[in-house]
């Protein structure tokens, strides 16, 4: 069983935070196919949020094909996210390091690098979303 935690200052809506944490748990291998998610009541009794928020998150997970609700029993994980673990991303990480060094050499400050990365990341995520 996993536990959720919410960050009030993150700017991400609580239901998306829950969805994100389930995805993350799948990537980290904390959750696999057949695992049961905590019930709505268990979640709200732990983190003091609106029950509808949890239901909405679980519906979104169903919509994404990651979980399925069995009426009267609970919500279960239906699919593992068979992505390589972070440790296997070594080459990508090395490339990113090289890029960061280049950005610094070009005179960008830390906040400048972060801003450039975030805006590019967002743009690319949006265009990837549109292509879908």
């Amino acid at each position: 069983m996993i536990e959720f935690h919410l960050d009030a200052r993150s700017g991400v809506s609580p239901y998306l935070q829950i969805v994100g944490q389930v995805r993350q748990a799948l990537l980290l291998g904390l959750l696999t196919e057949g695992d049961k998610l905590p019930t709505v009541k268990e979640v709200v009794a732990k983190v003091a949020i609106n029950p509808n928020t949890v239901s909405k998150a679980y519906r979104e997970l169903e919509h994404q094909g990651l979980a399925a609700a069995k009426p009267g029993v609970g919500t279960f994980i239906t699919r593992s996210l068979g992505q390589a673990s972070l440790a296997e991303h070594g080459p990508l990480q090395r490339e990113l390091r090289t890029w960061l060094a280049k950005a610094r050499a070009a005179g960008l400050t830390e906040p400048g690098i972060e801003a450039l990365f975030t805006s590019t990341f967002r743009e690319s995520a949006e265009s990837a979303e549109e292509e879908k």
Partner: protein
Amino acid sequence: MSAILHAQALGKRYGRRQALAECTLEIPPGHVVGLVGPNGAGKTTLLKIACGMLAPTSGRIEVLGEQPAADPAQLARIGYVAQDTPTYANLSVADHLKLGAKLNPRWDTELAQARIEQLDLDPRQKAGKLSGGQRAQLALTVAVAKRPELLILDEPVASLDPLARRSFLRHLMESVAENGTSVILSSHLVSDLERVCDYLVVLVSSRVQLAGETDDLLAQHYRIVCTRREESDLPSDLEVIWAEHTDRQSTFVVRGDTETPTGDWVADHLELEDLVLTYMERAADSGRRAKTQKTEDAR
């Protein structure tokens, strides 16, 4: 299902003071409703009218499809916890439960006992000797064990420390999840309500400024930052809630569609707290302007 609370031009006047004015609301069932506003905005007045402790001086109100306190059956469907979660200081925890059982036709003894155990409260303890957090939990237990369809709580966490606040809200949400109870709770702090409420009513200077599902409200509002311009230069489908200008920059808070308004500007969503504060500031601002106008007229 019909609205849990339906108010039409509801008003309450104490002598010359208008505590609540032109209050029109239609709150659908199945929500945890946050009633937010500064102190003295009329929150308590509205909640007291809703549970039948006060009669309005104008307008109409229906709660769960009936007039508040129309008959004992209607009273049994509503749980009310007044400001500062009052309990009887000289009665023990067990006495409170006994009293609850005697006074309420739908009293759930098992649920009440289970909650007291879960909270680790000593049944023999006098309520006057409990901590603020424990008293609040006892008041909530009595209200919840009544098995109401609607639970009305007036500033339930205002006097609690952060830990007791969190614990109170956890228990409240647990009982909402379990029984599907609709809840209306008030607070002067948005941060108290942000995570627990999925419906919001903002009340300032005795008037409703904003009401709706939290997610919708967040999706419809944007902060636009652009080069200095007038409100009239913005697209007409955007309702300007707030405008601020410097010599070269303008900042607007607008309400529009759920689609991001596009133009030569930066548009971003607001956090719930900023959104509510914007409406509060706007109301306070127009209140000040009305007052200045009055003094000028008087001259």
